[in-house]
């Protein structure tokens, strides 16, 4: 149903009214308590349209699509609370920082920009992500970094500070996906099974080791060498800077590199009729 702007009409526990917006110079603060996502995001878009450079969202509790489809450099969204699904989806340039946890679909099909999550995040992070950076302090769920890709100057980077569930880097076609296993509440291995299944581009770095049975057959497993660590270092530095972690501690455990064996995994599958 088309959303009707009518005070007090509840949808999924939210009310459909315009949120309270306060402006202080270039910084706009939006109180999201109990407000439907559509109205929150409308307020965010109009704040940027009216020249704000930072939008601070307070009392966020699961509102979806924050930062979704927003383009432009130098724009910043700060989220206090728990961000909802598909945060920064299709985003092209801005920075989103979440002082809390994020749900599924962070950075889905993202083009450029930065997402920093100070807590944990859910499933399907960075699906089809083409550029930009996603930094997660804690644990992440299933299918993280799935089908990340790279194109010319666009090389997406995702660093997850905790542990990850199954299908990490599945179908990966480009970019860099990093898992540190440091800030975690998950008991058990660094990463689940089916790591890099169907991978045909990009690189995965794991801080620690992974068993061959955990990985897809399309993946080659190597200890990270000096050149790899040089490639990885800027991403780690960004992670350390974002969360105040010592780089030396991150580097205290050797990294493992996963790369695809072929860029044409299905090149010999067919016979032409």
């Amino acid at each position, binding site marked *: 149903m088309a959303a009707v702007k009518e005070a007090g009409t509840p949808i999924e526990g939210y009310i459909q009214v315009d949120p309270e917006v306060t402006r202080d110079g270039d910084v706009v603060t939006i109180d999201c308590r109990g407000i439907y996502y559509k109205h929150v995001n409308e307020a965010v878009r109009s704040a940027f349209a009216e020249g704000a450079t930072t939008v601070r969202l307070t009392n966020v509790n699961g509102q979806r699509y924050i930062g979704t489809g927003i383009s432009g450099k130098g724009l910043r969204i700060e989220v206090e609370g728990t961000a909802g699904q598909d945060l920064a989806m299709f985003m092209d340039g801005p920075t989103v920082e979440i002082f809390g946890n994020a749900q*599924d679909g962070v950075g889905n099909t993202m083009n450029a920009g930065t997402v920093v999550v100070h807590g944990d995040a859910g499933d399907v992070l960075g699906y089809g992500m083409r550029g930009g950076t996603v930094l997660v302090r804690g644990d992440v769920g299933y299918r993280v970094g799935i089908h990340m890709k790279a194109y010319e100057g666009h090389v997406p980077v995702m660093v997850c500070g905790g542990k990850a569930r199954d299908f990490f880097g*599945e179908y990966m076609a480009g970019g860099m996906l990093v898992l540190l296993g440091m800030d975690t509440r998950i008991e058990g291995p660094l990463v689940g099974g089916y790591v890099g299944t169907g991978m045909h581009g990009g690189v995965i770095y794991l801080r620690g080791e992974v068993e061959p049975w955990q990985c897809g057959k399309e993946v080659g497993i190597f200890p990270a060498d000096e050149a790899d660590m040089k490639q990885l270092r800027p991403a780690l530095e960004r992670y350390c800077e974002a969360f105040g972690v010592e780089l030396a501690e991150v580097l205290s455990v050797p990294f493992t590199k996963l790369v695809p064996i072929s860029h044409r995994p299905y090149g010999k599958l067919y016979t032409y009729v």
Partner: protein
Amino acid sequence: MPISLIQPEFKVHIDYDKCHKCGRCVQQCGWGVYNFNERPIPDDAKCRACHRCVTYCPAHCITIKKNDLALRDNANWSAGLRTAVWRQAETGGVMLTGMGNDKPYQSIFDHLVLDACQVTNPSIDPLREPMELRTYLGRKPDAVSVESDGDGGFRLAEGSGVEKNVKLDTPIIFSPMSYGSVSLNVHRSLAMAAERLGILMNTGEGGLHADLYPYADNVIVQVASGRFGVNPEYLNRGAAVEIKVGQGAKPGIGGHLPGEKINKEVSETRMIPQGSDAISPAPHHDIYSIEDLRQLIYSIKEATGYKPVGVKIAAVHNVAAIASGIVRAGADYVYLDGFKGGTGAAPQIIRDHIGIPVEIAIAVVDQRLRDEGIRNQASIVAAGSIRSSADLAKAIALGADVVAIGSAALMALGCHMCQGCHTGSCSWGLTTQKPELTRRVDPEWGAERLTNLVHAWSHELQEILGALGVNAVESLRGSRERLRSIGLDQQTCDILGVKPAGL
């Protein structure tokens, strides 16, 4: 041992008495059939019977015939099945093919006939009287309110909820064919024709080339599982956005554009590296449920200022329930692709054996949405072998709002249905990225032929409507009482909601 047991499917015969020895056949053939040694020498095994050489031979001296080799008759083991076993024994590969299902399944359209007025209810002559084909694609409100236009007439009141519909001058759109599977000149032809016809072309999942940006109002941009070329700019460069879940020619499986077809321009448009395979996974990994689909629909709406978002699915067994979920998820249209729909490349076994006819899908989806009181919430687009204006009229009578044509559009541009799209060597310059072949399609020529085709079908639809005694395509939509079946079993008739002829 012989290298292959497979004999050529066709025989290329050249009447050398007439042959100019000009070598044009050598130059025209994309499959490399001809060698030239004082005269053209054909290699029958490479011929796909696409008639490019036949059409361009200045002496008209080339004939393509079926290779008439006799195989002992066996109704169970057709020649095709025998050849397939030999081919797979030789290669161990999955058989890849192009275009649509070529197996002799019954065509339901061919068993349906339309009504006409006689005596008691006058028919209408569309040449002299207005005949409305205009169609609006998208969600319709539960009720409309009108206001006076101050000039003795009425107009829709503001906020009546129909603003987000896409206006089509005729209920025909072009079906999604990606840049990559078809050439840029095909995309240009489709876009130019769509603009002239007041209809839509569809990018498919290969992104939108910069040359097509001026046609944004006549383009549906597609979001598929590979998310190729998808960014906020792309989403906003279409009149509507389509989430591709499935395709009639290959329900349940993903897409796979081989690295050979990914040249510089395709790579730029898809935003992926050159030469590496472009893999569209079978599912969207952010859609595992109707709730997830709703999430994707609304993320696209959020990113586009609430443009219409459609969902394309293959017609499969439970299509009615699936379509109901799609409409409830917030889709503005549901695109039903029948099992005879075409493709740039699909495993033959999938193409020929999975899915259901679009006629059935239209009928059961339309009925289900009506039963649930949500038919107005989404348009139904039907595709998957719409071969003529008769199929178009019957599809609309069964309940479709709009049909989409892909194979017919390619045929307007020269396609002869040789089923070689997957090879990337299309002699007609359609399903190839080889520059010496793609330049064979002049977009201006292509746009004119497409415009002619759609105009012709639209005129024919007007004639059919006139015969039915109605003056707007709206009046035919879902009007199954105007259809009768011939030679369909009772249960199929019940499913279609169509009476047998005579009742």
